């Protein structure tokens, strides 16, 4: 029986890293895997994962659903639901490389699909909301089924194991993307299980996180009022839903969303020029329940870019670097140096300061 939040405590770490080519040049998945090997000690083998963007160019207009199933009966039940809601173009198991380092694997399936147009029309929802509701429904209502990736032209790959072993397991060297994020897990409060590994994704948003959210339950109670369901027995998933809510539903800019999640202190807001002070006061007052407290460093992946953010007290490490069209992020400088030995600029952002790297000219 899987123990839930608060029933188990494992002493502390976590590693994150990310890269993006602003010109949209493709990087092979093995590069981000390599960055995780030098931060091995930050993980304890209870979770590793990756998100790649631009990896499915041949299906770029279709939603790529990656799903864990406990067993074949679960799969049949879920496929019935997916088959009604979507037109499935292609479905198969995700190819993996068997390794003794990754065990107890669930069934891991991938579907390239477009929403069933009639159903979509009947629902009177926009396409993304329609897809998001189906993903949440599966994760909430179908036992033994977890949709862990649901964006277009992107994919999440995660497992219980050390990140470098997870990369080998999913054969990431066979994928090429314009951006990648990675995570090595060292769970502190919650059990290590396949669904609880990072990244946590909804539509094209994915989050990798190093830290521990003190405000988790306050954030969860607020976000669940808007149809989200926190089902994955760990704190990080709520950050993904917060970004989805602020960016997609509220239409905020990335900077505004970052100012809600890592809001400046009132003492700092008091020193701001009047217009900025008014805006920041509005954001803090209106979305106070989405302030994320406790230590965190996160990378948000989205279609066309990456965003890095620390908690405002900067209780977790984060290093950024640039070289030509590439921007790199990692918990430790050494992880950047193995990807790029000689960056032209390397720096540590301040607490609460969002660092954003976007594709030049947007997404093709």
């Amino acid at each position, binding site marked *: 029986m899987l123990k839930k939040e608060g029933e188990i405590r494992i002493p502390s770490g976590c590693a994150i890293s990310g890269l993006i080519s602003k010109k949209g040049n493709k990087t092979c998945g093995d590069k981000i895997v390599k960055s995780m090997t*030098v*931060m*091995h*000690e930050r993980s304890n083998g209870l979770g590793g994962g990756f998100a790649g963007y631009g990896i499915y160019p041949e299906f770029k207009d279709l939603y790529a659903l990656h799903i864990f199933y406990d067993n074949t009966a679960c799969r049949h039940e879920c496929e019935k639901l997916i088959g009604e809601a979507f037109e499935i173009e292609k479905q198969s198991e995700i190819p993996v490389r068997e390794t003794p380092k990754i065990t107890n694997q669930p069934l891991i399936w991938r579907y390239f699909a477009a929403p069933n147009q009639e159903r979509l029309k009947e629902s009177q929802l926009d396409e993304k909301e329609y897809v998001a509701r189906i993903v949440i429904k599966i994760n909430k209502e179908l036992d033994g089924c977890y949709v862990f990736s649901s964006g277009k032209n992107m994919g999440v790959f995660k497992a219980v194991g050390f990140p470098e072993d997870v990369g080998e397991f999913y054969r990431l060297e066979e994928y090429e993307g314009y951006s990648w994020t990675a995570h090595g897990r060292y769970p502190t409060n919650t059990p290590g299980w396949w669904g609880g590994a990072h990244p946590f994704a909804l539509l094209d948003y994915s989050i990798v996180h190093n830290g521990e959210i003190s405000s988790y339950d306050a954030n969860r109670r607020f976000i669940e009022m808007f149809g989200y369901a926190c089902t994955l027995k760990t704190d990080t998933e709520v950050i993904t839903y917060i970004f989805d809510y602020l960016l997609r539903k509220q239409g905020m800019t990335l900077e505004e969303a970052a100012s809600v999640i890592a809001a400046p202190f009132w003492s*700092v807001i008091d020193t701001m020029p009047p217009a900025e002070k008014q805006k920041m006061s509005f954001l803090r007052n209106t979305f106070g329940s989405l302030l994320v407290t406790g230590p965190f460093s996160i990378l948000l992946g989205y279609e066309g870019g990456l965003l890095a953010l620390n908690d405002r*007290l*900067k209780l977790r*490490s984060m*290093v950024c670097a640039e070289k030509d069209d590439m921007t790199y992020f990692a918990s*430790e*400088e*050494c*992880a950047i*140096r*193995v990807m790029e030995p000689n960056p032209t600029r*390397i720096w*540590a952002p*301040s*607490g609460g300061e969002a660092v954003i790297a976007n594709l030049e000219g947007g997404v093709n």
Partner: protein
Amino acid sequence: MKIDCTDKKYDILNREISPLEGEIVLDNCCGQRFIGAGASKKAITINGVPGNALGCYLDGADIVVKGNAQDATGDTMNDGKIVIHGSCGDAVGYAMRGGKIFVRGDVGYRAGIHMKEYGSKIPVLVIGGKCGSFLGEYQAGGLIIALGLGYDDKDVLDSFCATGMHGGKIFIRTNELNAKITPQICVRTATDEDIAQIAPYIKEFCECFGISETEVYSKQFQVLWPNSANPYKQLYVMN
């Protein structure tokens, strides 16, 4: 003695270093943790980026890094010297209780957090560049000297400097202190007596990195120390 650190795990590397004495050069270092932990009687030169907790519990050894260092450098070090030619991550000199750390470049958040001193054991942290927030947080002793070389006065310090400080001294090389300092902390422009206290370390730092002392003294220093007339009682609860 030269050691190539390429793809070497931190525990294997540290077991190799531990019995050695004298000069040791580590090449291609990349993220190996705990280098020089508790070390004495050796001088380690590191080419590359050493991992977290470099020189933790250091006990008399010398460490020179020809590049940047990561987080928690010199954690709880007792004696010896760490010289960083580049910049340093968060929490450099964490709970340091003796010895010296010289950083040529910038430092991240919480440099010198919880430094302490007792009797003749007075740790010294000298920073050539600028400092992240919470410099000297909960500082209980020792000297922190921030030079801000190459930066405007307003950029030397970030927010919340000396939060919870209750011992030791912080010297900031700036004609004007722009950062907000809490009322629990006293600030004054350094007197001749104050300067005399840091002069030997400034001299050593300048010699170490080939910096002109005249340039360092071209600006005033501001000195921060805890205000014993405004103790922390009643900060949280009435007691």
